[in-house]
């Protein structure tokens, strides 16, 4: 196995991007978290070809990242030139569980991504992070006027996971959407469901220092 890994790591530097791609994917599929392979995959995140970077990211996600790598190596991928890599970086961050919270400030910036489905994915992940993502609250509220309905729906869902029943600003904004005739019925339905969720959830103002102020 060690010999195969050494060869695959060498292949990550091959001239042909398809060989680099295959080597990056195979290292992930082997599932062996070897320090040499892990570091080589981290280095491959800087490859010139987007699908090689994507393959390295996919393999690192499979091998499970070391926590410091989230900020050092994955967060910069949120600004990758290719939207699929940016979207996959968001998914990789989400995969880290509670440790994903360190990336919240960067995810907030990523809500301005030029590609709508990356913005949608970022909003979704902020919702998955939940109350630890409360600093995203204001920015998510701005996303409720995004041009793309998918982004609005994902932002609503995220606000439902982040906010509590004492958050009057959010509740007022959500209620205003219900009475806004310009909003499509799917958005209004989602708002109703989210309002219900917020009111039922057992979250207290103590976990919301912004509101206490």
């Amino acid at each position, binding site marked *: 196995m060690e010999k195969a890994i050494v060869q695959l790591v060498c292949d990550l530097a091959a001239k042909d991007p398809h060989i680099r791609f295959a080597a990056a*994917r195979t290292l992930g599929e082997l599932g062996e978290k070897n320090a040499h392979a892990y570091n080589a995959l981290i280095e491959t995140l800087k490859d010139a070809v987007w699908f090689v970077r994507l393959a390295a990211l996919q393999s690192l*996600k499979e091998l499970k990242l070391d926590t410091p790598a989230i900020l050092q190596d994955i967060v910069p991928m949120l600004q990758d030139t290719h*939207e699929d890599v940016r979207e*996959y970086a968001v*998914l990789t961050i989400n995969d880290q569980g509670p440790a994903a919270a360190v990336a919240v400030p960067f995810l907030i910036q990523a809500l301005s991504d030029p590609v709508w489905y990356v913005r949608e994915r970022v909003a979704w992940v902020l919702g998955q992070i939940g109350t630890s993502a409360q600093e995203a609250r204001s920015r998510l509220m701005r996303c409720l006027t995004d041009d793309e309905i998918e982004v609005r729906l*994902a932002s609503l869902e995220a606000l439902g996971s982040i906010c509590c029943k004492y958050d009057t600003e959010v509740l007022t904004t959500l209620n205003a959407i219900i009475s806004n005739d310009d909003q499509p019925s799917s958005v209004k339905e989602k708002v109703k469901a989210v309002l219900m969720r917020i009111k039922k959830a057992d979250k207290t103002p103590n976990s919301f220092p912004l509101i206490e102020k």
Partner: protein
Amino acid sequence: MTKKILIIDDEEDVRTYLSSLLTNNGYHTKVADNGEDGFRKLTEFFPDLIILDIIMPNQSGVGFYRKLKKSDAHKDIPVIILSAVTQYKDFFAHDHQSAPRPQEFLEKPFSPQELLNKIATHIK
């Protein structure tokens, strides 16, 4: 009436192979080598099914799929994802809140019979 299939793949060998396989099995095909080209062909050809690769230059299969599902005219066309990337399902795993997932996933290399079976399931 002959059913129409749009093949979107950047590899010429794959396009040629698929086109000949499907033509020999009674389908009418058109090919595109990337997502943008695929979208142009979509409007003029209006296929009954799309076979889509993921890793392609310009617009990838992921971008094409998202755009397709936002188009009222084309969102109901079934899509079979055909790709060497084994993690592509991750892209669609959480799509329940917006677009539905692609109908089928098939990994390259694939069995021609398996592909034909999957096609037959979605276009009758």
